[in-house]
């Protein structure tokens, strides 16, 4: 042993890396297990329960590896280190997120398969045919790259909203598509999309809302500056959760003050879940997340049904002053025929509100014609 120690002195590299390896390994072993990562905005892997079934299906050991990686000591610092290295290498993307100018981030689209979108257009046309007496409107909101094109680095692999809206324009039954892209584009110098999140801002949603009000012949809507707006600093959205870039510029999330109530499965609350403003996923405050079905009581007249994705969540609060009842439906959670619901509630208007990225790949829209 003594001799070994004497000899070891001749190899400082062994001593150094030996200590480094074992120090990290031991500290990691004793570091506390966190349940969720705020940085990545997700639940971390839990230690898998052993079962022979899983072992023989080769599902057990990968879970142990995932657990080790998810709970590795100083995980967030390692992630930042990688981000700095990527930035030094001049990388313009990470983990499916493409960087643009001025801290903007976009969803990466390397290749685009439009077949699902074509099907979705057909589903909507079939729906319109059945409900031609009810003022059906389709808004396909462009995502940031289609509007903030000056923030997109040339040649970046991002979504082609022009193509999608062009296709919709040509193929959705005439008179039912409300194109808001041009309006949004004319305000592209304003803060209408989040830099770190895939949603439009409340201001962006207002421009689309105003268009919809004009489209349905209501001119009694308020201008943005007539609302009482609250700003929430330090919003880091879904794009950041993936890219985790060390030099991120946080967003400001705004909402208009509202007393409107939302009824989700019999529980009535304010339409905003303000507790969410304390956590990473602040956008989830709007409509209290993504309820499958919810009813919002407004102070206006008429009933509207909204079949939607999360882009509608910050859009709906504006409508509470125009409608008596706003029912929102998230097709992911709907397992019953819409037609009966429409008959029963006797809606005056039906609005489809999807963003182009969801519309491209959404597989639940087929359900609007099912179960009837």
């Amino acid at each position, binding site marked *: 042993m003594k001799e070994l120690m004497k000899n070891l002195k001749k190899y400082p590299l*062994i001593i*150094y890396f030996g200590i*480094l390896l074992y120090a990290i390994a031991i500290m990691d072993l004793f570091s506390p297990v966190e349940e969720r990562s705020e940085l990545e905005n997700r639940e971390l892997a839990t230690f898998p329960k052993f079962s022979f079934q899983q072992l023989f299906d080769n599902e057990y050991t990968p879970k142990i590896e995932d657990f080790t*990686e998810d709970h*590795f000591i100083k995980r967030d610092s*390692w*992630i930042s280190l990688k981000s700095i290295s990527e930035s030094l290498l*001049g990388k313009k993307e990470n983990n499916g997120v493409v960087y643009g100018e001025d801290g903007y981030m976009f969803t990466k689209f390397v*290749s685009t398969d439009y077949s699902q979108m074509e099907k979705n257009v057909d589903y909507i046309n079939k729906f319109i045919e059945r409900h031609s007496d009810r003022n059906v409107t389709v808004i396909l909101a462009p995502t940031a790259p289609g509007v903030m094109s000056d923030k997109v680095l040339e040649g970046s692999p991002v979504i082609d909203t022009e193509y999608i809206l062009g296709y919709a324009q040509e193929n959705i039954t005439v008179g039912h598509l409300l194109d808001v892209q041009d309006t949004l584009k004319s305000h592209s110098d304003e803060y209408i999309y989040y830099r770190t999140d895939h949603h439009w801002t409340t201001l962006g949603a207002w421009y689309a809302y105003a268009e919809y009000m004009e489209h349905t012949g209501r001119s009694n809507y308020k201008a943005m500056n007539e609302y009482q707006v609250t700003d929430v600093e330090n919003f880091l959205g879904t794009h950041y959760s993936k890219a985790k870039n060390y030099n991120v510029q946080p967003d400001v999330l705004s909402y208009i003050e509202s007393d409107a109530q939302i009824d989700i499965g019999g529980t009535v609350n304010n339409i905003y879940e303000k507790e969410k403003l304390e956590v990473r996923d602040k956008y989830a405050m709007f409509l209290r997340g993504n309820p499958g079905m919810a009813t919002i009581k407004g102070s206006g007249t008429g009933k509207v049904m909204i079949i939607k994705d999360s882009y509608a969540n910050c859009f709906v609060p504006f409508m509470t002053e125009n409608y008596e009842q706003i029912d929102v439906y998230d097709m992911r959670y709907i397992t019953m025929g819409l037609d009966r619901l429409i008959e029963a509630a006797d809606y005056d208007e039906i609005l489809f509100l999807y963003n182009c990225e969801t519309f491209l790949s959404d597989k639940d829209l087929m359900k609007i014609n099912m179960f009837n």
Partner: protein
Amino acid sequence: MIFSNIFFIFRFLTVVLIIYYRVPYKYKNGVITLASLIFYSWGEVKYFPIMIASTVVDFFSSQYIEKHRGDRKKMKRGLACSALFNLGSLFFFKYADFFILNANNFFGLNIPLLNIPLPLGISFYTFQTFSYTIDVYRGDVEAEKNIINFSAFVTMFPQLIAGPIVLYSDVQKKLNTHEGRITLEGINEGIKLFIFGLGKKVLIANNVGALWTDIEAMGFGAVSTPLAWLGIIAYSLQIYFDFSGYSLMAIGLGHMLGFDFPMNFNLPYISKSITEFWRRWHITLSSWFRDYVYIPLGGNRKGLKRQILNMLVVWFLTGFWHGADWNFMLWGLYYFALLAMEKIFLLDWLKKHPVPARIYTLLAIAVGWAIFYITDLGALGGFIVKMFSFSGGISAGYYLRNYFASILIGVLCSTTLTTKFWDKYKNNNLVMIPVLTGIFLLSIAYLVDSTYNPFIYFRF
């Protein structure tokens, strides 16, 4: 399990090394076997018995041959037993579905596919165990008497899954050495090689590899000519750094355990001919085919015609060894054609014209990788046309900006700069320790946030 993985480095390796260093010498081979069986079963627990069978069959075949040395008939019986098992299991697991599929297509049959997942590393370890029995048959080595020592040779986790293909003679002495197997000198060297290998795989291969994955997603026919070239350059770098990085990690781990594995890559992209390329690329595989196929067939001793025929056999097999698909056969035959051409007339000219020689070699290798990767022959044709037709498509601009630095680093590290650095500083701890620390910590950072860490030898 693969080496470029947080669990492997900080859990598996740390525990195995402590146990291995602490136990008395007579148990060390047992520790290697046990650790290796866990390592192997980690990825595919169902194939644990194949590993055991592979060890047992070759151990006893060789014992049988050794016992009946002189009796040709019985020796042949022992050899046949090993051949039947090794080539049989390789055929069954790797090629059976390919033949069923093609038989169905050609003869309009409807034989159901077996759909058995390929046991990890089967192409590597069947070659190792088979060559051992051949060596015993030839009398080149003496049959191992201790089954634990032998199973340590077969299963040894550093080289189990992706080589280098270690021959029994490479490790025989160390396996039977009780004192002095492990040296501080060896551990010192092993640490350095392992970290360099880790960096090659995680920092270079993974970084450039994502580009090729994107191009595949776009469709090989959708890209512009410059992007096609950028892509194939990225893939050429990925496969080199991935494979050689993995081999280097294996060699490093081997040193830490006290073994000297043969070198597997020697800067293949500086070659000035394809002949030279194959002396620098996956060296242990080329040597295996040379020693166990080419030379037994007569090598170059039976005239040029026979030599060319022997090359054809070797390269057909080399191609097919890489994967059960037509494009791999094509890839093998492509190299046969180039090598035969060089053998017959081109090599002398290439030697006199080093600059055109380098360009020709790199071009030929790049086309080779396209053949190697793109299994769909139609898509392959489309891609090669793209490479040489100067046509439009998705432009390269964004990808060039995104990958320029990574590709540049990859290119520089493919040259003699790396070996010059190694020769100059390998014993200079003031340089080595900071450089290795940087590579090690950065690699961990990339592994912790691993969005792209493929293992590209599943097909081998």
